[in-house]
C-alpha cells in the first residue's frame, strides 16, 4: 500500500485580516483560522490516490497547539493519521528551519512505514513563499515536482509517477520515480465534502503530538529563530503617497457629468494616455 504524507498549515483567513487604521498594526482578534486553501488541493489529490489504489494518508503540520483543529478537519475529509509537530523551540522559524523540522518529522514517520509520496500546497496564503516544499524535498532526497496541475499516472509496482507541471508558456509532462514530493497547483481538483462516517472517525482519532525530541531533532541550532538564516528587521505599513487621488466632483454628481469631467481632466494632463487609447480602442 502506498503511504502518502500531506503537509498542511493552519493560517489566518487573510481575507478577514484588518489593519488598525490608527496604529497600523495587525488586528488578529476574531480572525478565523483555516487550512491553507492551497493545501486542500494537495490533500484532495492524496485522497484520490487513496480511492484509486488504496493508500495510507498521514497529515502533518507544524504549529501551535490550536493547529490540531486543522488536522482534525483533514481527518474528517478522509486522512488516516494526523501528527502535530509542536514545540516552543520552533517559534520564529523561517522557511529553511521549517523545512528542517518537517523533514525530520517525516524521517520519524518513515521509521514506522516508508513514505512514497509527500504532498504540499504550492504555497501558503500567509507566507506566500513556496519554499518549504522544495526544502523538504531536498532534505529527504525526494524528486521535486512543483506546480503540478495534474497527476497523469502512478504505477505503485514500477514506482513511477507521470505528472503535468505548469511552467512558463506551457505544460511540462514529467516522469520520475517514487518517492517524490508534489506541490499541487490551485484549481487542480475540487475538495470533497466530509462524510458523516469519516467525521465520526475523525472525532475518535487521536492526533499525535510530537515535540522537538519526538520529531527526532537533537540539534536545536537548526530550528526556530536560531536555525533561520533570515531575520525580519522591520515590519511597517506602506507609506501613503503624499499626493492623494484627485476626486472628480461635479455640481450634479450625475454619472455622465462625472465621467465627462474625468476624461477632460485626464486627457488634458496625460495626453499620452489618450494617444494610447486611440491606438488600442475598438470603437
Amino acid at each position, binding site marked *: 500500500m502506498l503511504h502518502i504524507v500531506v503537509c498542511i498549515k493552519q493560517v489566518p483567513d487573510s*481575507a478577514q485580516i484588518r489593519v488598525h487604521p490608527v496604529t497600523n498594526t*495587525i488586528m488578529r482578534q476574531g480572525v478565523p483560522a483555516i487550512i491553507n486553501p492551497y493545501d486542500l488541493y494537495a490533500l484532495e489529490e492524496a485522497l484520490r490516490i487513496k480511492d484509486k489504489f488504496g493508500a495510507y494518508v498521514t497529515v502533518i503540520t507544524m504549529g501551535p497547539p490550536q493547529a490540531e483543529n486543522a488536522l482534525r478537519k483533514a481527518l474528517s475529509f478522509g486522512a488516516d493519521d494526523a501528527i502535530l509537530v509542536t514545540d516552543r523551540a520552533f517559534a520564529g522559524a523561517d522557511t529553511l528551519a521549517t523545512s528542517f523540522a518537517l523533514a525530520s518529522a517525516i524521517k520519524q514517520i518513515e521509521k514506522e512505514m516508508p513514505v512514497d509520496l509527500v504532498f504540499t500546497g504550492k504555497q501558503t496564503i500567509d507566507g506566500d*513563499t513556496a519554499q518549504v516544499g522544495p526544502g523538504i524535498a531536498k532534505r529527504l532526497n525526494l524528486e521535486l515536482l512543483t506546480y503540478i496541475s495534474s497527476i497523469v499516472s502512478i504505477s505503485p509496482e514500477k514506482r513511477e509517477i507521470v505528472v503535468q507541471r505548469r511552467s512558463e508558456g506551457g505544460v511540462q509532462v514529467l516522469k520520475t520515480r517514487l518517492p517524490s514530493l508534489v506541490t499541487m497547483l490551485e484549481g487542480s481538483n475540487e475538495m470533497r465534502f466530509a462524510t458523516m462516517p469519516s467525521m465520526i472517525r475523525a472525532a475518535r482519532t487521536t492526533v499525535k503530538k510530537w515535540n522537538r525530541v519526538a520529531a527526532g531533532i537533537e540539534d536545536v541550532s537548526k530550528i526556530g529563530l536560531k536555525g533561520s538564516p533570515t531575520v525580519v528587521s522591520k515590519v511597517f505599513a506602506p507609506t501613503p503617497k503624499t499626493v492623494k487621488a484627485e476626486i472628480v466632483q461635479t455640481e450634479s454628481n450625475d454619472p455622465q457629468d462625472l465621467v465627462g469631467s474625468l476624461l477632460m481632466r485626464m486627457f488634458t494632463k496625460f495626453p499620452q494616455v489618450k494617444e494610447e*487609447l486611440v491606438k488600442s480602442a475598438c470603437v
Partner: protein
Amino acid sequence: MSEETKKPASKKKFELDPKLAEYRGIWVFIEHERGMPHSVSWELLGEGRKLADLLGVPLSGVVMGTPGEDTRKFCQEAFYYGADHCYLMEDLLLKDYRNQPFTKGMTDLVNTYKPEILLLGATTLGRDLAGSVATTLQTGLTADCTELNIDIDIRSLLATRPTFGGSLLCTIQTLNYRPQMATVRPRVMAMPKRDEARSGGITEHPLSMIETDIITKVLEFIPDQNTNKVNLAYADIIVSGGKGLKKQENFQLIWDLAKVLGAEVGATRPVVQSGWVEAERQVGQTGKTVRPKLYIAAGISGAIQHRVGMDAADVIVAINSDPNAPIFDFATYGIVGNAMTILPALTEAFRKELSARNVAAVAA
C-alpha cells in the same frame, strides 16, 4: 538588535566576518526556455546594477543552457542590460528545465565563485530553483520582493516584501549566511535601457553530471494556446473589478468597458476566489504585477495585497462608493460613487470620445 551587539566590531568601522567577506558580487539568473529569454531577467539586471553600484562590486549574469550560439547570445543580452560579466554553463542536459541538474549547476557555480547576492525571477522556474538552491546551500531566501536595497554599513541586502496576506510590508535580511538570495516577480522592477555598446567577459564552467544521474525525464512540452492567453502583465490598459461590484453578473460591466478600450481585464483576489474570472486575471501579491499606462479600478478597496500589484501604473482611476477606501490614497483620479452606474457611463463616454478622435485622425 542582538545580532549586531554580538559582533566584536567597533562602532567606527564594521568588519564583515572573513568567511562572509569571501563572497563578493551580485548575480542574476538569466532565465530562458525554448530560445526565449524571460524579461524578468533584464528587469533584475536593472535592479542588480543599482545594488552593485552601491556595493562597488561587479554585476554578473548566470546563463545555463545547451551548448551553442542560442545560449551564448543571452550572455550578450545580459551585458546590454547592465551585466559586467557572465557565468556560462553549457550542457545538453540543460535543454529543458529540470530541478536536479539546474540545482546542481547553480550550487556548484555559487560554491566556486561565491557571489554575495543571488537574484532570480519569481516564476515557476525561478521559485522551484531558488527554493532548492537555498536549501542545498543552507542560506536565506526571501520570496517575491517588491523592493531591494543595501544596508551599506554592513553590506547587507534589504529585501522588502508584503506580509500577513499583504496588509503590511516587512524587510528581511540574511545577516550571517551567504549568498543572500531573493526572488522578484515579473514587472515589479522597471525594465532597464538596452545598451548595445556594453560588453563583458565570460567565465565558462562545466556541469559535472551525466544523464543517468538525473532521475526526472521530460516526456513532452505542451505549449499554451496563444489564442486564449491572458497577457495581463504586459498590458498597457487594464480595467479591473473588485468585490464592490457585488455579484458576478455586474462584472460584465468591466468586460464592456475593456472591450471599448481594447484593454485587458484584471481582478482582485476575492473576485478570483469567488470564481467570477479565471485565476490568470488576478492582480496583486499572489497574482500578476502590472505596469500599464492606464489602470481603471472599479469596486476595489485598494488593500496592500492588490496595491503592490498595480501601483506602478502611470495613471490610476478609482471608482468606489466608500470615500474612505484606501485606493483613493494612491489613485490618480477618484470617483466616489456606485460602480454599477459609473461604469456604463464611462464606457459610453470613452466610446464617444475615442470614435470622434478616430474620425478626426482619419480625416487628417
